Structures are given as C-alpha cells and as structure tokens.
C-alpha cells in the first residue's frame, strides 16, 4: 500500500504554486484509496474461491473442504478488519469530501459485505455436507445446485462490476437476486423427504444463506452505484440499503 510519501513522478519544486502542494497531497490520498480498492478486490476474489467449492459438483464435499472454507473465511475476516482500520484512519487523516468521501465510505461498507459473505459461504459448505450425508438429498442436488450457482453468480458479477466501476450493474444484480429468492423459496416449499431434523434445518439455513449471499452481492452494487453517482438505489432485499 502506498505511504504518505509523494509519488516519484512529481518533482519537488520549491517555486511551485502553493496550491499544488495540496494537489500532491490529494494525489497521494487517491493513490492510497486505489491501493485499498485493489486490496478489496483481491479480498473479494478470495471470497470467490470459497464460493467455487459451493458450486463445484465434480466431487463430493468432505471435511477438508469445510476446513478450507472456514480457514479462508477467517483469513478474509482478518484482512477485512485490517483494511477497514486503514480506511477509517485515512478518512480521519485526509478529510476527503464529495466523491472521494463516498468512495471511501462505499469501500468500508463493501468490506463488511465481503466479511459476511465469506462467513456465509463457509456455512453453506457446512450445511451442504450435512445434506450430502443424507442419501435422500442427492435427489435435490439439481435444485440446490441451481440456487447456489445463481447466488454465487450474483456475488461474482457484483465483484466484477466493482472492479470495472460499473455503476449500472446494480440493476441486473437486483433482477438476478429476485431469481435467487424464488429458487430459495422453492427449496423451502419442497421441504425434506427424510424427516430428519438436521436435514430440515440444514436445508432451511442453506436457502437462507444463499439468499443472503446474493443480497450482499446486490449491496456491493448499491454501494458502488452510490459512490459513483451519489444516488442510493433502493434494494429492499439488502439488509443494509
């Protein structure tokens, strides 16, 4: 991450107009903001790696997969807190305004969504494992598979949109989020065949977690749109905005 030192390409000219000193400082702030943003995207890609375990149906899940998901989730949480601390301190030190302030606020909010998404994905792996152990639920893998694919796609598309600075992506994300909600409602309506409490609870929570993962993806889109335009897109399904 860039330090408070000025970029190397700006000459240290004692006869430079006084106002350019402020410009150099702001350039440094924006450099640090970009660095934080790049780290956020890196963090989001790390969350995606947990998600890939969720949609990969080439092999059954096992306890190793769960441990990997939980370890990655812990790592994401630690890194998110580190970045959040850096962001808060940067706001306090640099007193950004307007778009600069919005971008930093959006970044801090997005970190929270990434942190929660990582944890939710680890929970999804845990409950998929529970359902996998119950032979009856292999019959439901199609429905569960579709729900988790779409939920993860919403999140992945949101991260891509953030990386591209696509303020309009939130509209598509909201449409797909409705699709996730419908799929998850369908999972709950079909219920369980085996009558086992653990499976029933696992299915209910799985649906809930997938729904929330998609919600956090939408939230990323909302934060980005607000950062760029200053307008808040209403996202009823999001827990935050």
């Amino acid at each position: 991450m860039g330090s408070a030192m000025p970029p190397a390409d700006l000459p240290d000219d004692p006869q430079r107009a006084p106002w350019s000193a402020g410009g150099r400082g702001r350039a440094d702030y924006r450099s640090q903001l970009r660095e934080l943003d790049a780290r956020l995207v890196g963090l989001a890609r790390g969350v995606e790696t947990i998600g890939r375990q969720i949609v990969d149906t080439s092999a059954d899940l096992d306890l190793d997969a769960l441990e990997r998901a939980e370890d990655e989730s812990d790592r994401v949480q630690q890194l998110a807190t580190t970045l959040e601390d850096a962001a808060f301190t940067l706001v306090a030190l640099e007193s950004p305004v307007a778009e600069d302030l919005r971008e930093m606020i959006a970044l801090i909010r997005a970190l929270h969504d990434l942190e929660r998404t990582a944890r939710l994905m680890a929970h999804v792996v845990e409950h998929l494992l529970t359902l996998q152990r119950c032979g009856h639920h292999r019959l439901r893998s199609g429905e569960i598979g579709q729900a988790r694919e779409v939920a993860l796609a919403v999140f992945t598309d949101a991260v891509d949109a953030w990386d591209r600075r696509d303020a309009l992506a939130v509209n598509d994300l909201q449409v797909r989020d409705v699709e996730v909600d419908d799929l998850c409602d369908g999972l709950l309506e079909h219920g369980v065949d085996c009558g086992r409490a653990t499976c029933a609870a696992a299915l209910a929570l799985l649906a809930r977690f997938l729904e929330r993962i998609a919600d956090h993806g939408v939230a990323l889109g909302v934060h980005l749109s607000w950062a760029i335009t200053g307008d808040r897109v209403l996202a009823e399904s999001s827990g935050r905005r």
Partner: protein
Amino acid sequence: MPDSGRDLRTGFHTALDDLDDRFVTAGLRVAEALPRLSEAFLLGDVTIIEQAEYMAWEVASECERIEDDGFVLLAREAPVASDLRRLVALLRMTVDVSRSASLLRHACLTLRQFDPRFLDPPLRAQLEELSRVATEVFVAGLDAWRRRDALAVTDVDRADDAVDELQRLLMGQASEVDDPGTELLVLGLLARYYERIADHGVEVARDATFVATGQRVAVGRERLPPFAGMDPQDRPGGRGPDDLDAGGES
C-alpha cells in the same frame, strides 16, 4: 476569553455525543421490541408482523442516518485516539443494531408459515428459553456500551455460548419429534435468527472494550489484530490504531 480551539472541539464532542445518543436510542428500540415481540410470537399473534416490519424499517433508517452523519463527522473533524475509536465503533455498531432489528422482523415473519402455539410443549419451552437468553445477551451488549464497561465483553461472550448451546438443544429436541413438517424448517431458521441477534450483542460489547482499550477482544472464532500483516510504513500517514493512544485526546 474562551479558547477557540477548545470551543471547536466542544462542538465536535457535542456532535459525537448526539450520534451516540441516537445510536443508543435505536438500540433500545430493538431491546424493547425483542421480549415484547418474542412473547407475542409464541402466542401466535400475527398482528406483530406489521409492528416488526415498521420497527425494523425505523431502526434501519435511523442507523443509516447515524452512519451518514458519522462519516461526515469523521471526515470533517479528523478525530484521534479515543474520539476516533468511539466514532469508528459507532459506525460499526449501527450495522449490528440494524441487522438485529431485521433478524427480529424475519423471526416474526415466520408466523406466516407456522403457529408456535401448536409446537410440542418441550420444543415451545426451548424456543422460549432461546429467545429469552438471546434477548438478554443483546441487552447486555448494549448496556456494556452505555456504561462504557470494557470488561463486560467476557460475560456477554460467555452468555452467547449459552445461546449457541440452547440452539443445539432446540434442534436436538426437534429431531425427536414424530412426523415433523414445516415446523422443522422454521425452527432451524428461528434458532439461527436468535443466535445472530445474540452475536450482534457480543459485537456491541466488544466495541465497548475497543473504545476503552484500543484492543479488539477475540470472541468466538475471531482473531483480529489491527493492521495485521501490514508494514508500518504502508499504513496511511504512517499511522494506525497503534497510534490511537499516542499523544491524542483522552
């Protein structure tokens, strides 16, 4: 003659106190609703759904306003040390209170899927105990913040362990019920909602400790050293939470 610098800081502290008061008011709104709505829920009173939705909307809206105002205050006033920690904690905790209100709303919404009055008595009793203890944990967390009790997080975290255990007991009892239907699905969700409400209470208590000590206490699975893995020269302005106590206002 008044010191203009002190006057400016008084203005900042007044604004910070106002944010804090508004946050506590929002938290108390949830704390008041929890036992009331939970009791009505167990009685199968569907009229609480609208109350819960309105409460969640009000709390979320106010938390959003507190957060917006907090960020502007952070940017304009450049606080340091404990002032910075307090403001950062407030910005974090609005999420906890807002989500707790939303979770309570979701719990009430399950009345559309099943009637708790027809639960087997042991299950009903277990659910009642879970909601009661989860409420206590949330209220304890909020009280820790209000009293600036840096030591309360240990007790609150321990009480949260009891919530987790009650959740396991609830699902264990549910597994013994003959011919379970939709209620199993809903019980799983309800247990999760109350567990998360308690978790948010722990987070609030944890932030009370953070403000007083600058340290994040590890709770549950979390290990959160600030700026872990970041070289000191990479910190913005060469400063970070380690500097929050260095030479700033107390």
